[in-house]
């Protein structure tokens, strides 16, 4: 297995979506290839940092303002199951 082969499989490896034999081959490569080990490890850290970052959290005040606006808009809009019936009758009239 070359480093390029390893990189192609990196996403499936990190997501644990591969058969046992391919996994064993990748882990064998990681045993002796320091570069791939570092790339694999830092890619995993990248994912974890973004996942845990709370980047773009929705602040509570904005959240409640948005929710109020959404509910008001929905109330003023044709309700989910009434909509097709109205359209249909409008067409047939």
């Amino acid at each position, binding site marked *: 297995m070359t480093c390029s082969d390893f990189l192609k499989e990196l996403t*499936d490896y990190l997501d*644990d979506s591969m058969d046992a034999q391919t996994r064993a081959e990748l882990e064998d490569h990681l045993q002796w290839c320091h570069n791939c080990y570092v790339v694999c490890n830092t890619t995993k850290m990248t994912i974890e940092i*973004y996942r845990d970052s709370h980047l773009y959290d929705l602040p509570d005040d904005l959240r409640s303002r948005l929710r109020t606006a959404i509910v008001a808009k929905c109330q003023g809009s044709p309700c*989910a199951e009434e909509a097709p019936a109205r359209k249909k009758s409008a067409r047939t009239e």
Partner: protein
Amino acid sequence: MGTIQPTVAEPADELSLVHAAKAGDISAFEELVKRYDRNVFRIAQHITQNREDAEDVVQDAFLKAYQNLKNFQEQSKFYTWLVRIAVNEALMRLRRRRPERMVSLDEDIKTEEDSMPREVADWSPNPEQLYSQGELKEILGKTIQGLPPSFRTVFVLRDVEGLSTEETADALDLSVPAVKSRLLRARLQLRERLNKYFKNRTGGDGKK
């Protein structure tokens, strides 16, 4: 080396909320809004990179979902269906803001080479602790902003929101191999760009 497993649990009563909302029960729909507004906002802001646009996307996506609930066939999770609507709204906003550039999820940028690791350096054991919360958010925001929209959309759905590869493909109307290819490149490009902030400086050159 451990693997990363996303966790998204679907509450058992979700379908009954959907059914009640379909019948016009606004409070049931409000409950669905409460469950997913944070996720939709995060996705919208990742795609549009603009706070006002993200706020509009949240409102428009939920309104559209409400108006089109009758078309939700319940073959996928409600959340996946909602994400599909939100992504489309967000991309529309992005196109409006950047009309000079075509923004498409189909774009397949350059070759594999754009994602080949150029710099291989170990990172500090807890790189996020090198910076304050505010600094870290700025670094992460700036870094992901540099990715093409099609890459950051796949990354946020798969790695931040924890959708499965299949759900991400479904929400974005892409094939599974296309999702995997974009995801790999997004992950590698982010890693490369974060190197300069997170690499281990104790035994290195100490440059910022």
